[in-house]
């Protein structure tokens, strides 16, 4: 197994690193489903307010694939369906019963999983509501059940700030991981690429079956699946699809097939300088952030982020953790205006550049909060955005072509290989304070619609 070594990038020295202690979030009284978590599908309701649902029972289905279900992560009564403009469903609230009752799915033992047919796997995944855990590049949508991807990627070396450690996750719970990988292999018949860190030690990672194993090293975003796809099986055009999913979702798929029940739990990290206890937590899918932080304390003036600080989304305490998110970041909100900031020595300014004295101390003592630290300006290509993008893509030119809405050039410059999350650090280091991730997102949406 070759190790692919990447040099470009930056590991954010963020304060409030989660400690390796696992706590359970306990039971909450309600759960929420946010249809907006699922990109690329139009959803239709299958329940109405007052209906009772079991865990794993369908709540929504996809308009284009009526057999693709989005199911309930708990048993209880649908207490509220909140819709927004043009009848878009914003939120489905489920009041939980005292105990869980599970929708029954097919059960298999490990041997029979190894010989399952693609059709049976697909049927069970679509029905169970775990299909949406599989996403598709380009465009990062829920995987299209009608196609066969050229490969499946499972990235097990996350480098994002506060991302849960793979070895630790498997130590806590390794049930279903191998079965999940076998399911994916039989589902697609295409290579399943498992990417691990060079120092991965868990026996399951080193003796794993049914996958092509790769190792990567390097600073963030070396652990992003988009970077792995770029270096292993780059996406050539809009129809050249790759599927990907997280390690915990692989395990959940495995558990579904081993137990016949919809697995509702996952392990997340809670981190950030504004939260008192930074740790690993076992939570239920759809739990509200307020419930996750119930036994914790966080500053009033802080920002709750579902996901990591580079790519996550701002959420209120009464909103649920994102379906795909495994991190809850809590960082200080700040809009202070230091006097003549550009002239200060900058011992407390976090920067990847060498423009502040803090660099001599490796940014120790320099905290990060929600400040922009500057005004938006036009592109001046100093080269800092290139220094954090470990891809053979020329970001400055790609950005210009996206702004010019030139689809031909975007395609030539490799837009299909790009995803906003891989460009998050580019936004972070840009001296012009351009929203580079957002520009990439706009470019992808534009080619998706008009290409």
């Amino acid at each position, binding site marked *: 197994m070759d190790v692919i070594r990447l040099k470009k990038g930056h590991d954010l020295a963020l304060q409030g690193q989660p400690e390796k202690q696992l706590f359970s979030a306990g039971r909450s009284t309600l759960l929420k489903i946010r249809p907006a978590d699922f990109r690329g599908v139009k959803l239709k309701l299958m329940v109405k307010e007052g209906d009772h649902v079991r865990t794993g029972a369908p709540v929504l289905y996809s308009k284009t694939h009526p057999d693709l279900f989005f199911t309930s992560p708990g048993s209880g009564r649908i207490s509220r369906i909140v819709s927004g403009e043009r009848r878009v469903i914003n939120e489905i609230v489920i009041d939980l019963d005292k105990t869980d009752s599970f929708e029954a799915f097919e059960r298999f033992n490990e041997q029979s999983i190894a010989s399952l047919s693609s059709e049976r796997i697909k049927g069970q995944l679509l029905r169970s509501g775990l299909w949406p855990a599989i996403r598709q590049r380009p465009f990062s949508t829920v995987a299209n059940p009608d196609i066969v991807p050229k490969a499946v990627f499972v990235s097990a070396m996350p480098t994002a700030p506060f991302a849960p450690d793979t070895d630790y996750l498997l130590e806590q719970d390794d049930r279903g991981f191998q079965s999940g990988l076998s399911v994916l292999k039989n589902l697609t018949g295409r290579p399943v690429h498992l990417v691990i860190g060079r120092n991965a030690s868990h026996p399951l990672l080193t003796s794993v079956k049914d996958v092509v194993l790769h190792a990567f090293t390097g600073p963030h975003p070396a652990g992003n699946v988009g970077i792995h796809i770029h270096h292993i099986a780059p996406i050539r055009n809009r129809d050249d699809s790759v599927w990907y999913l997280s390690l915990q979702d692989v395990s959940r798929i495995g558990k579904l097939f081993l137990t016949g029940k919809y697995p509702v739990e996952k392990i997340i990290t809670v981190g950030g300088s504004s939260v008192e206890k930074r740790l690993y937590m076992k939570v239920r899918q759809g739990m509200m952030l307020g419930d996750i932080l119930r036994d914790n304390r966080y500053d009033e003036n802080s920002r709750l982020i579902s996901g990591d600080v580079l790519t996550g989304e701002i959420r209120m305490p009464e909103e649920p953790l994102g379906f795909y998110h495994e991190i809850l970041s809590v*960082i200080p909100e700040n809009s202070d205006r230091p*006097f003549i900031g550009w002239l200060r020595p900058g011992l407390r300014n976090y920067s990847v550049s060498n423009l502040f004295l803090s660099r001599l101390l490796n940014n120790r003592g320099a905290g990060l909060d929600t400040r*922009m*630290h500057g005004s938006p*300006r036009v592109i001046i290509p*100093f080269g800092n955005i290139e220094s954090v993008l470990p891809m053979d893509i020329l970001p400055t030119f790609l950005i210009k072509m996206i702004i010019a809405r030139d689809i031909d050039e975007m395609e030539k410059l490799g837009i299909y290989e790009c995803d906003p999350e891989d460009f998050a650090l580019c936004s972070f280091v840009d*001296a012009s304070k351009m929203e580079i991730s957002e520009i990439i997102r706009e470019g992808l949406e534009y080619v998706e619609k008009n290409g």
Partner: protein
Amino acid sequence: MRRLRNILDRIEPGFQEGGRWNRFAPLYEMVDTLFYVPGTATSVAPHVRDAVDMKRSMITVIIALLPALFFGMYNTGYQASPEAGFLQNMQTGVLAVLPLILVSYIVGGLWEVLFAVVRRHDINEGFLVTGLLLPMTLPPGIPLWMVAMGISFGIVIGKEVTGGTGYNIFNPALVARAFIFFAYPGQMSGDPVWSLADELTAATPLAAASSVQGADAVGLVSGAGYSMSDMFLGLVPGSVGGTSTLAILAGAALLLVTRIANWRIMAGGVVGMVATALLANMIAPASQNSMLSLTPLYHLVMGGFAFGIVFMATDPVSASQTNAGRWIYGVLIGFFCVLIRVLNQAFVEGIMLSVLLGNAFAPMIDYFVLQQNIAKRKRAYAKQ
């Protein structure tokens, strides 16, 4: 400090949408963010941001220019009357150079604000660098109205008309200098312009080296009284900021450590210059051209080569914007510089034209690098 903040907050509504002074919003933005870092918080991911911004980046270039500027002031006085002593020389220099800088900033700033207001964009900090670069490339005694004309041409034609900040093809400060050079050659070239004192005429080292056909250039330079160490320190006639290789190297060190300037451009420039000069040295015995015999070290310390390659060629906007392209661009500038110095002795100071030529080639160089990148991607796609 509180009071200033209060004043700014009080007048802010007038500059916002619908306010009386809304047209002048860029001016307010400039003053407001000059004194206080903008208070905006992130609204989309990434939720945290690096402390770097355009002000910090551009002020770093200004700081890198300061050693050359201060030395240039001293040298301006020193060239006028070498025996006057340090303080007297410094005073003469400040009095001569400060007006150049002020005119450049005020006239250029007016254009900058005018375009910002009319085209409704914010005022860009890059102007602070342009406005200081121009006077540093001029002879100290140049009439102020020429500086005003030059910076006007540089900002309006060199920058705003050809795309505006971030898109301009040529380095605006060099466009300004080239304009003055070709429009008013009497004040920009020839022996008398380099010294403030009217009765003194002094050839620059480059002019001395090319003065006699068939002679040895190194001999001509030392014959004119310029030692290697004088030229390295910068105690020779020349443009305000361009004579001291030592002070320029100090600025280069800061630009390289902070990575504001791309090292590939500087390295490429030196490689191109050394290679071309060595080549010229090989041909020298067969020709009457004295400049052919000038060794690379002399090319480095004489004239504006160091200043141009460190501060002019590295302007990130008008240079090549790909890493491979930056190498080619740098080498090309070094090559052109020696070529012009040697072959076209009417423009014995070759660096200005060679950087402008480099600017002109930069988009084409980038185009080829881009095609390479696209071809490489196609090959990677085919290999799967």
